[in-house]
């Protein structure tokens, strides 16, 4: 826990001035505010009764009081300003670091986690760190100062009465921590049920149309009611337990107040021998302290719970930060000119060592050739993409591009020789222009329009409300086909020598599909291309067909060779051919 705290604090280092000021201002501000009751007490002592009021003393005390109040106000305000800056700037840095980390870890790491999980690290966990660790720290610190200060000031007035208060102190702690503990368990259960309810609602209501299509309403309601009822029950319990805190600590506070009141009053009339006489003003000050004494205890017990949350959030965030990065290879060779030749030499690869996938794979691709990858859905066609673009590293053999071993080429340089269009299109929130010019941010408007026209995307872009400046996002109403056209335009603008294309099949209407096909053809002119193929014409025209099944490369060769072989491909082809 302390290691984690220390690490969070290391992020606060550039802002340590704010940290130091927070501590100083808290000390001064809180101490000054604690001095207030003393002067109030003094002032009350000057007003003994009718005709016995010492105005000179009152005015003097009131003036001092006014100054103290003003000073304390300013110090507390400055303290807030400093913690604010400290907290927000620190978490800004942590957040940027985590994000940068995600850009630098191997793709493997991102594939192994869900997107929601990682997003929650960057967003929610870091917010919790801010609330718990940084702002909590300020509260904790001023809470402790308040408690210690109160005790000291009380002792200054009268040590013996203060002892009564100190003896009663553990009572506050016990009550507060008991309730916190009681609350904690029910809260954990409550948030578990809330999570269940939210995911059920998201699943059901998110697919409301299917619910209706299958007349599933009643069964969905039954399932919802079951969780809803349980949630309501535990929620009422958790809320009740947590709402006990205030009255209970108020009660303890009242007990301390009463004790001080009685003991103080008895002392004032001199009937408690060992304490000695105190004035009414001193009693008033004491009462004021007793009144505010337990408040910080409540706050501290709240802060401690938040702190625990924050520490576990910080641990999750640091776990991401501790992930190994893809080693920097910018010192490796830059592939200046790529002739489009590519070969696989005895390549071996598997995601998990126990399940070998690709073994001893050899393939020579000449510039301008087309390689079709075919196979049933889920056969692992993306593995080829992962290897070509070095998202994953091959474990055996070599891949050679343009006569150079890819191991010797800088990753960025290697990737820039490839253009990739996937079926899962990626459109980010931004204008159409920004989306197309993603790989070439300094492209001129003419270039962008030229690329769009070349891939038949210009027509629909033109019709968007703001043309190329229309802000789009993944779910902003563009059809799947339109999104894919934008992704093709993105590559067209780059004009890389090697291509990886994923022929779309799903939810694209015919005309768009034809346009995409034409766009692909344009894009492929004179380039070496790997095509994840679904169309027979593409497959038959390919120079090499890779037939894949469950991750393995089953057969390779051209159409005629594979038909002659009479294997898996021949079967696949015949089943299709028999139909027409």
């Amino acid at each position, binding site marked *: 826990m302390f290691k984690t705290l220390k690490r969070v604090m290391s992020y606060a280092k550039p802002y340590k001035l704010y940290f130091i000021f927070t501590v100083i201002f808290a000390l001064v501000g809180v101490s000054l505010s604690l001095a207030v009751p003393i002067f109030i007490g003094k002032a*009350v002592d000057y007003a003994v*009764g009718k005709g016995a009021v010492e105005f000179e003393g009152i005015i003097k005390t009131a003036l001092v009081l006014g100054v103290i109040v003003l000073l304390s106000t300013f110090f507390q305000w400055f303290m807030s300003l400093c913690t604010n800056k400290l907290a927000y700037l620190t978490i800004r840095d942590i957040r940027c670091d985590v994000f940068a980390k995600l850009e630098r870890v191997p793709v493997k790491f991102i594939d192994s986690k869900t997107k929601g999980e990682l997003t929650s690290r960057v967003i929610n966990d870091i917010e919790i760190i801010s609330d718990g660790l940084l702002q909590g720290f300020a509260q904790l610190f001023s809470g402790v100062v308040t408690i210690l200060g109160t005790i000291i000031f009380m002792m200054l007035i009268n040590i013996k009465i203060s002892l009564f208060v100190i003896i009663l102190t553990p009572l506050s702690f016990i009550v507060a921590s008991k309730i916190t503990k009681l609350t904690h368990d029910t809260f954990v259960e409550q948030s578990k049920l809330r999570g269940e309810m939210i995911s059920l609602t998201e699943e059901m209501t998110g697919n409301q149309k299917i619910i209706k299509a299958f007349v599933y309403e009643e069964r969905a309601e039954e399932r919802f009611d079951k969780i809803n009822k349980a949630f309501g029950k535990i929620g009422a319990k958790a809320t009740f337990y947590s709402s006990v805190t205030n009255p209970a600590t108020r009660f303890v506070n009242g007990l301390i107040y009463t004790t001080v009141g009685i003991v103080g009053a008895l002392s004032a009339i001199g009937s408690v021998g060992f304490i000695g006489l105190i004035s009414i003003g001193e009693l008033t000050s004491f009462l004021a302290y007793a009144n505010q004494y337990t408040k910080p205890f409540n706050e501290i017990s709240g802060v401690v719970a938040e702190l625990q949350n924050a520490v576990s959030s910080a641990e999750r965030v640091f776990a991401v930060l501790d992930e190994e990065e893809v080693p920097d290879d910018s010192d490796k060779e830059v592939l200046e000119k790529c002739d489009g030749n590519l070969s696989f030499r005895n390549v071996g690869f598997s995601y998990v060592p126990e399940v070998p996938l690709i073994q001893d794979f050899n393939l020579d691709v000449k510039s301008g050739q087309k390689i079709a990858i075919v196979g049933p859905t*889920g056969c692992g066609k993306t593995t080829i993409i992962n290897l070509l673009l070095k998202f994953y590293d091959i474990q055996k053999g070599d891949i050679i591009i343009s006569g150079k071993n890819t191991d010797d080429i800088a990753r960025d340089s290697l990737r820039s020789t490839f253009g990739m269009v996937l079926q899962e299109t990626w459109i980010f929130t931004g204008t159409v222009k920004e989306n197309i010019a993603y790989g070439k941010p300094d492209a001129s408007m003419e270039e962008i329009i030229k690329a769009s026209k070349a891939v038949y995307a210009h027509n629909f872009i033109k019709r968007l409300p703001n043309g190329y400046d229309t802000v789009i996002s993944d779910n902003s109403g563009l059809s799947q086909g339109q999104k894919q056209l934008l992704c093709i335009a993105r590559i067209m603008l780059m004009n890389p020598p090697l291509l990886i294309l994923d022929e779309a099949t799903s939810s694209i209407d015919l005309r768009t599909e034809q346009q995409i096909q034409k766009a692909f053809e344009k894009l492929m002119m004179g380039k070496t291309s790997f095509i994840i193929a679904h169309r027979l014409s593409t497959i038959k025209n390919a120079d090499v067909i890779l037939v894949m099944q469950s991750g393995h490369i089953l057969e390779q060769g051209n159409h005629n060779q594979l038909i002659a072989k009479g294997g898996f491909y021949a079967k696949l082809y015949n089943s299709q051919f028999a139909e027409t």
Partner: protein
Amino acid sequence: MKRVLVYLKNYKKQLILGPFFKLLEAIFELIVPVVMAKIIDNGIGNNDKAYILKMGAVMVVLGICGLAFALICQYFASQCAYGFGTDLRKALYKHINSLSYSNIDKFGTSTLINRITNDTNSVQTGVNMFIRLAFRAPFLVIGAIIASMLIDLKLSIAFLIITPIISLIIYAVMSHTIPLYKKTQQKLDKTATLTRENLEGTRVIRAFSRQEEEIKNFSIACNELSDNAILAGKISSILNPVTFMIMNLGIVAIIYFGGIRVDSGNISQGDLTAFINYMTQILLALVVLANLIITFTKAIASANRISDIFECQNEIVSGSLKNTDDNSEYSIEFENVSFMYEGAGANSLENINFKIKKGGMLGIIGGTGSGKSTLASLIPRFYEANSGTVTIFGKDIKEYDSEYIRKIVGNVPQKAVLFTGSVRDNMKWADADASDEEIIRALKIAQAWEFVEKLPRKLDTVISQGGKNLSGGQKQRIAIARAFIGNPKIVILDDSTSALDYATDFAFRKAIKENLKDTTIIMISQRATSLKDADTIIVMDDGKAVGTGTHESLLENCEVYNEIYNSQLRNREGE
């Protein structure tokens, strides 16, 4: 608002008793300073030890009673709030289930989810806080002022001046910070969007080597976020110190003027102490009140949003017919059917006419947005035609019970959505009592049994949310099989074989022909070859049927169909 508050009706008792006990506690709290003042004046003033002890005991009793009353109130509050919340959620969920497709389109599913989860929660919290604090805080303020007036009317003027000043400051600060916090939240949402998009595009970003730019973009968004948060914090951090200052300056004033009143014999020293106590109480109560106002504002806004949903009613009136006439020749007939989506400017379907025989097959082909899916969605009456008649088994669709019609129409949506649960659970969506044999038969027709059989736990294999552990083609096949359960008379396949490879697609179509002879099939597809066997093919273009007929007749007289067919044929040249 009223539509939401109605669910409080079962909790009237708690709603009245809760605040009542809270008020009792507050009264007891107000008495304490008075008792203390008595101890100072009478006890200390008269040197009366017995009186001090007696009053001390009274204070302890007051404390215990206060605690008991407070706990009773908190109990009622939590019972009422969560009981109400549970009832509200249940009713809201039920209502959402009664909404039509147009209604769902209007709100969007993410809005509906938000209403059920977040908005009901904030209304629930509002009710809880209402019972606990809505009466207590103002009562403490007013009570403290009245109590001080009773002690000394003239000195209480100080309260009448200070209370509004503090209230005003709280109001001013909050009215500035609330919009700022909202803006901060928006900035936080933006960083979340950036993060999600980046994770989704990991491969593309790396393929373009744009990581460093993405990091830069993100840090800009992060800076905006922290700038906003710091600004909001700057303003809100004024609140506590300034109210502290005004309260204490008020105390200074009370001491000075109180001194004068004590000197003239109008009040005692103990009274002065009580005055100072009340001042502190007022400030604390005002701060609570301010937070309460925020909670209420949120709760009221949520309640209004929920009301909007309750006010929205399903416009489709269900009929009562719960059986079909098996002697009718046609299973589906469309006569001059036109349809327009709510709020749309033009018809999505115009004058559609066709008839399909029982056990026949209707093919629909056309571009995106040409109205294929819209046409199919009128058959289970998901939407209501604006004009013309849809006839199912010889009867106007309006005569049928809405649930019944959806039961006899099996539906395979474009996007294969599966639900958390086992394969069997998913297959039982149309019929909770479906037998394993029936399920396996359906899976076999959909060409899904071949892989389900190989799964480690077969039908009991658990599908994770969204079906992440299955491939696209596998999901699609299960979604197809799901629609065959319960012996539907009509099955709609909305471009639902797109992720299947040729061999599987072919085997599937063969299986339909062999196994579902009496079932009317509506098949929407992009591929002309998939529809060649259909009894009737409708060629859709921009909401209109530009051709209706068999494959051969369309080839002869439908230009659009020819265009589609030839372009696809060209791709298959050389076969």
